[in-house]
């Protein structure tokens, strides 16, 4: 990082200009890789959200199961990504698939944990009064508990999305696509023209994708959260 500072100012300007040139010369390719990256992420997040929220609702008031589910999903997050990707190769082969299975396992914990803490945070008095008015268990869940827990659940979904976007860049190492391809092609040609531009593209667009998805989810959270819970 510091060696960049050693170089002259012109070098920077040149570097930035050549990077813009690089991007301008292949917008379709980059967009395609970004879309592939987004597809991996969104598929994983949708599946993980449905799975984790349902699981969270199921285990929230069952202490033993809850501890078990949280521990196991915590273990997944502990295992280094390349290792977890690699462990799926003997089962599903190379490509996007091993990456997506692994990313799914990573995405569970933040959503699951926020689902149970979100449900925990619903004031017992509110549930009690819902029950007292004759709401059934399912109706309490759909009308009261999940809506009240929603901001916290959404926070979990957003964390999972950011993590998934970042880690999905490694999918290329197990034969997948996405923006990681730009990083890899830069690495293999390091020293040759456009190699660094390629790495920058892969890295920057990954972060950018993360920010865009996070902003989109923030908007979604706003729309789907009761006005009474917004401050």
């Amino acid at each position: 990082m510091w060696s960049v500072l050693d170089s002259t100012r012109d070098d920077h300007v040149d570097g930035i200009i050549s990077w813009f040139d690089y991007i301008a010369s292949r917008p379709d390719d980059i967009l395609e890789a970004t879309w592939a990256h987004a597809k991996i992420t969104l598929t994983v997040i949708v599946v993980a959200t449905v799975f984790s929220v349902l699981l969270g609702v199921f285990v929230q008031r069952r202490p033993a199961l809850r501890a078990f589910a949280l521990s196991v999903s915590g273990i997944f997050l502990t295992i280094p990504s390349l290792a977890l990707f690699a462990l799926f190769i003997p089962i599903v082969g190379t490509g996007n698939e091993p990456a997506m299975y692994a990313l799914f396992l990573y995405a569970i914990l933040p959503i699951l944990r926020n689902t149970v803490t979100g449900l925990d945070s619903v004031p017992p008095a509110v549930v009690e009064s819902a029950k007292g008015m004759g709401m059934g268990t399912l109706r309490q869940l759909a009308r009261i508990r999940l809506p009240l827990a929603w901001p916290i659940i959404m926070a979990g979904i957003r964390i999972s999305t950011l993590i998934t976007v970042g880690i999905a860049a490694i999918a290329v190492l197990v034969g997948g696509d996405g923006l990681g391809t730009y990083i890899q092609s830069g690495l293999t040609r390091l020293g040759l023209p456009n190699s660094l531009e390629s790495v920058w593209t892969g890295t920057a667009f990954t972060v950018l994708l993360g920010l865009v998805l996070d902003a989109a989810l923030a908007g979604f959270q706003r729309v789907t959260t009761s006005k009474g819970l917004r401050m």
Partner: protein
Amino acid sequence: MSQLTPAQARLGDHGTTTDGREPEGSLPPDLEAPHEPGWLTRARRKHLGLKTAPLGILGLAGLVFWYYQSLNLAESKVQIASPLAWGTKLWPQTVEHLTIAFWSTVLVVVVAIPLGIALTRPPLRRFGPTIVAVANSGQALPAYGLLILFLSMLGQGLRTVVVALVLYALLPVLRNTMVGLDAVERSVIEAGRGMGMTRWQVLTRIELPLAVPVILAGVRVAMILNIGMATLAYLIGGGGLGVTIAVGLKLQQDAVLVIGASIVAIVALTFDWLGALAETYLRPKGV
């Protein structure tokens, strides 16, 4: 730290750890605890991790060892035997792996905790929320790209890996230091100041000890991130257990792949458990 403490909410943070354990609610000691349903108390008390984890890890290690033995390396083909040689490949790689993770974690602690303290003091305090917000979106930063960029700047080798890792793992510790310090009850600080403690005394005797659990959780996350990132060190000639995984991928040898990945997983799980132990035993009493 999954619970949204007011401080976290204030800093726009929703907290992440790789930790499946329950958040520890820090109820203000001066007020009566809000009524909590029994199942929640029971859920908090359940810590599957600490006691059963070593058994699970040992079981996993046993399984890998059994698989390793069953490969019968002496008689198997060179594509398997060579990368899986314990004395010349796997063991040195494990040592390398841990060396990388160790130094980057130490550096992260040395840099991030003082920085976090500085950013919660009055003159810099207003930058806190911004930094935490950046730290949060920083989670989308691809470790892969970061490593290669540092490679292009600093060249190959361990030093490059450690610098890249420090930058990558700085954020959780920084964020948790700030959140932990911010979560200390105002009334406790007020009481300390009211008794004539200096700002330094309040920081060292009250704020930091009370923030220890949160800071430790951040350090544990950083350590696990570092162990994970060290798997990618092979990409820039930094060695580590990633080498074996990469060889397995290149030679399309599932056995090599699985053993390399399993050892990494066992190392990570072991250190996560050690981290959990540290969190339990270094936590100040009474908190």
